[in-house]
């Protein structure tokens, strides 16, 4: 097994021009995803986690664009790829699953046809062979009697089933990496738990790397080995899931953990982090979390660097918490 990371993002910056000046959705992000690893990316809405996921697919919609940094996938710098170069990777080596399964599938095409299309755009394959692969993929994601389902239209499926179809499509070409953008957020908790369990198993069995983008730390705890916490376009903390959940070093991570409903005491108010995300086009000087931070001090006017707490744990804070220890 090779040790170089499958996906390596270096100094990535993505900007969207607005009337108030450029909006920096992803700001100097470094991130590695090892082969077979499940990485969670956690953050509030608008923290840039979705844009980060899309940039690994070359799917940033105009007028947004990548202004600095590189995305290295399997040793290749893909940032300079042409559209056809990207096309060979998308769906083939990197697959993506989106948040809302009700809108991810073409409403007027049978799902079998959509799956065959996904296969045939990457390999020269007969319809019969394609159908066999599709059947296997559907069974793997827990869809029973796949043959009957192939001729059905998306609206004939429930939300959970549709997301399974979407996952099956993502699996078709046996990608090395799947980027899942809040794939269980629109589903109810029992379905969510099933899908999390299935995905964890799939990732382990096939050694597929998984990047799980979510706002839900509970989900991350269930599936990810490592987690990166994003705030206002930056990664503020990055390390093994267990360490981060037990002893967070960044005040923002601490706030997120305290806000998890599971950590609330009955009868007490749920915790919430005061204030809201700053406008990404008008970031405060220094630490962008400082205005909401309980520990803010004058040193926070300086832009904090990523500090290595231990070999596998880094934090972007001038005075990291000592992790409750």
């Amino acid at each position, binding site marked *: 097994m090779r040790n170089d990371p499958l996906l390596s993002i270096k100094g990535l910056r993505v900007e969207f021009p607005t009337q108030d000046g450029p909006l920096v959705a992803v700001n100097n992000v470094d991130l590695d995803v090892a082969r077979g690893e499940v990485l969670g990316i956690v953050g509030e809405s608008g923290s840039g986690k979705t844009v980060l996921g899309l940039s690994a*697919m070359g*799917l940033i919609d105009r007028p947004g664009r990548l202004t600095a940094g590189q995305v290295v996938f399997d040793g290749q710098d893909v940032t300079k790829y042409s*559209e056809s170069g*990207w*096309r*060979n*990777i*998308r*769906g*083939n080596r990197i*697959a*993506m699953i*989106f948040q*809302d399964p009700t*809108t*991810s*599938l*073409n*409403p*007027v*095409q*049978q799902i079998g*046809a959509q799956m065959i*299309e*996904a296969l045939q*755009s*990457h390999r020269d394959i007969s319809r019969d062979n394609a159908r066999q692969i599709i059947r296997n993929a559907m069974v793997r994601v827990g869809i029973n009697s796949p043959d009957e389902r192939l001729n059905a*239209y998306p*609206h004939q499926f429930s939300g959970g089933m549709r997301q399974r179809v*979407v996952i099956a*499509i993502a699996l078709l070409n046996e990608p090395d990496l799947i980027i899942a953008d809040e794939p269980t957020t629109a589903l109810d908790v029992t379905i969510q738990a099933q899908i999390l369990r299935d995905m964890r198993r799939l990732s382990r069995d096939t050694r597929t790397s998984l990047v799980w983008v979510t706002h839900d730390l509970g989900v991350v705890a269930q599936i990810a080995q490592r987690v990166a916490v994003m705030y206002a376009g930056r990664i503020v903390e990055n390390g093994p899931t267990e360490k981060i959940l037990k002893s967070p070093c960044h005040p923002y991570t601490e706030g997120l953990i305290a806000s998890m409903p599971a950590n609330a005491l009955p009868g007490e108010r749920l915790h919430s982090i005061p204030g809201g995300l700053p406008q990404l086009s008008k970031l405060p000087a220094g630490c962008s979390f400082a205005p909401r931070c309980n520990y803010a001090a004058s040193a926070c006017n300086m832009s904090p660097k990523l500090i290595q707490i231990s070999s596998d744990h880094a934090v972007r804070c001038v005075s990291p918490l000592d992790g409750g220890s």
Partner: protein
Amino acid sequence: MFAFILRRTIQSVIVLFVMSLLVFCMINLVGDPVDMLVNPESLPDEIERVRRDFGLDQPVYSQYWHFLKGALSGDLGKSYVFGRPALALMAERFPATLELAFCALIIAVTIGLPLGIYAGLRPDGFATRIMMGMSVLGISIPTFWLGLMMIILFSVILGWLPVSGRGDIGVFLGIESSIFTMDGLRHLIMPATNLALFKIAMVMRLARAGTSEVMAQDFIRFARAQGLPRKRIIKSHLLPNILIPIVTVIGIEFGTLIAFATVTESIFSWPGLGKLVIDAIINLDRPVVVAYLLFVVALFLTLNLIVDIIYAALDPRVRLQGDDT
């Protein structure tokens, strides 16, 4: 499906009946056809004889009763002017109008649809701005003025195309049409284009609106994330989804092309239904006017039914029982 068609047919018969009543009563309020038919110097008893021959001496309700009895056996009365059944006259003229409307529709779709899709895919493009500007002209310039300008340019100044008439008629597979001869096509192209201009602009605007709406949908992004080629995305994801509203409008517009080709037919002396009905209105040829109006109503009823059926075929979410939600 069968129940749906049956119910719609019954509704159609009722609409036709009400329409015939309205048309018959109203047309009886306008002028006296006998004045148009006899020599002004005829003797009073001769005028009375003509009036009796056409049944115009009867009260309106008994005239209507007579008409209704005839209509139920397929006889919509005889033209006062030609002395021949109104339906036969219309049947003679109908192919010319159908051919004109059909060609106009083909022109509108083959030009309007690709241009509209292009404009929707490149909303900020230079070509898009020019096209959208032209489409405003296409919608707002009066047909008759443009028709006259076309005649001046292409027939009078350049001398490329004949001024008016239908030209030679060819026979192919038992169908008589001027499409099948060179001379016929040269006669057809100008009136068909004139009739199509408004529709080109309309189809283009519909296609553009549909395209920009559909391209922003998640399933397009998901299709891109699967690495589908752009052509494939346009063909199997974009096109079927924008066609649904376009087919509805085109179906109805085909009706208006047939029913209201009057202006174009008058300018180009095209021997179609529009010219027939204009002449009939001028001559107070009541049976022809009534027959024409009933034909137009029946045409729209039929087109609506066909559009609904095609709509259901295109959009699997639509079911034609009418009793489900």
